């Protein structure tokens, strides 16, 4: 469970270009839920997602994860929690060019110091889950859009996180691939993962998979609630 109380994020504080990306937001995300953050671009979705995912420290307010206060943890602890708890899927896939699909999937697990052989076999299994076993040795820049999307998801899953965070995952996908993506989300939901998606794509936020929806505007929550 992620619980945030009154969190704000201010950039360039005290300077003329001071900018409040998120303003005193409080919300709770329960385990097993699929939550969508909805709102126009610039509404603070991404910043909020970053704070929920322990990537960004809030300027004020508190975040607790499974009843553990994590707001003022030093970066190395926060990173460890992030690595173990969250899997990230980014807007532009953000795969590392020049590396193979397999290496991209393995990268998040390098700092854990897992034995290379076991890590490699786990990564191959994860790729196989998405029908990508034959592409393991291919450089990511040679993959098709759909394949790259699935490699990015496989990477998000390599550390076996409880929570998946996706930021505008369908922004660069056509309709067919977007539906394919939602099928994968369904699969993950069935596996018991908690899922948080920021999106302003109707295919995502109108999907029947969503169990709750939070609508943001200008850094504040407009509506929030469970979906039937």
């Amino acid at each position, binding site marked *: 469970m992620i619980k945030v109380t009154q969190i704000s994020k201010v950039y360039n504080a005290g300077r003329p270009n001071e900018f409040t990306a998120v303003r005193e937001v409080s919300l709770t995300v329960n385990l097993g839920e699929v939550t969508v953050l909805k709102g126009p671009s610039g509404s603070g979705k991404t910043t909020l997602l970053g704070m929920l995912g322990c990537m960004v420290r809030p300027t004020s307010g508190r975040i607790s994860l499974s009843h553990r206060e994590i707001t*003022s943890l030093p970066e190395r602890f926060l990173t460890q929690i992030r690595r173990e708890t969250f899997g990230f899927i980014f807007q532009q896939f953000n795969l590392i060019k020049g590396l193979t699909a397999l290496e991209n999937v393995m990268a998040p697990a390098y700092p854990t110091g897992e034995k290379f052989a076991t890590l490699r076999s786990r990564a191959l299994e994860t790729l196989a889950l998405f029908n990508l076993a034959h592409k393991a040795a291919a450089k990511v820049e040679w993959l098709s859009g759909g394949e790259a999307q699935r490699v990015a998801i496989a990477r998000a899953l390599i550390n076996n996180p409880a929570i998946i965070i996706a930021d505008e995952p369908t922004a660069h996908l056509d309709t067919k691939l977007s539906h394919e993506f939602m099928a994968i989300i369904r699969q993950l939901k069935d596996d018991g993962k908690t899922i948080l998606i920021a999106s302003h794509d109707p295919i995502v936020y109108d999907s029947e998979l969503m169990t709750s929806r939070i609508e943001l505007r200008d850094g504040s929550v407009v509506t929030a609630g469970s979906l039937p």
Partner: protein
Amino acid sequence: MILNPSILALLISSLLIAFMVLYSALYGAQILRRWDITSGSELQLSLERKTYLISTILSYFLGIQLISLFLFIFTVDSLSPLFVGAMCAVGTLTVNGFGYPTLLLKLVNFILAGLWLIINHADNAGYDYPLIRKKYLFLMMLTPLILAESTLELFYFLEMKPDIITSCCGSLFSPASRGIASEIAAAPVIPMKIIFAVTMGLTTLSGTIFILKQRLGALFATLSGSAFIVSLVSLVSFICLYIYEMPSHHCPFCILQREYHYIGYPLYACLLLGSVTGMGVGVLVPFRKIPSLSATLPGFQRRLALTSLISWLIFTILALRPVIFTTFRLE
């Protein structure tokens, strides 16, 4: 001043290091004044990032310091032909008053930087930066010492006036009677042997007790510190004599040369590692009660103690091997 590549190398690197340490001390001071763990302000975030920079600089400093310690002795040794009466590094170090203080500060700073990194490592394992103030106060104390070392080293080399003839066909009477002490006075052999054996024995014993029972940490650290001094005195007093197989050659630097199979390098490396890690155990003892450290500190201290113990063991074996196995006898 002697224009010699090694001197230039030492001065350039010490200048760079001094600059970097000063730079990190400025941020250290900022951390001391402005640190607020509960704040999520941009200032706090940037200070937290600075801690990475400072510990990186100190880590590099430690590595460079270790090599520079040996390069310093090597350089000083290789300069000895330039001074009448200087047979090796000992003679060159006494050509002016800055030689030995420089060497001493180099040793002290190495140990202090090592201890700083140990504290830093312990602090990093706590989720609330429990030692941040102590750590940076320590840095504030260490910085002037490092700057002093660089200054002394600079003066030492600047003040060097070699005894050379002005043209290679002329002759100049070098003041042979100026009397550079080429040999150092040494402590008496038999009491020193006993003290060495007792210190090493007690250090090993207390280290073992600490590893097994987590007790006597402070004692072990004190003994490690004493072992450092006792070992240095013993090297001069008898260990070197056995290595050289000469009854009056006390120089602790010649063992770094090829004639003695570079035995000095592992000896001094073990000596330094053993004392830093051993004293590190003691430095951490008062922090064991801090809640955020109580889980990680004992394990870290045990690893330190183990490293220290192994270093001392290797040192003792290397030091005593020639004493036991040569046919050379002092008494």
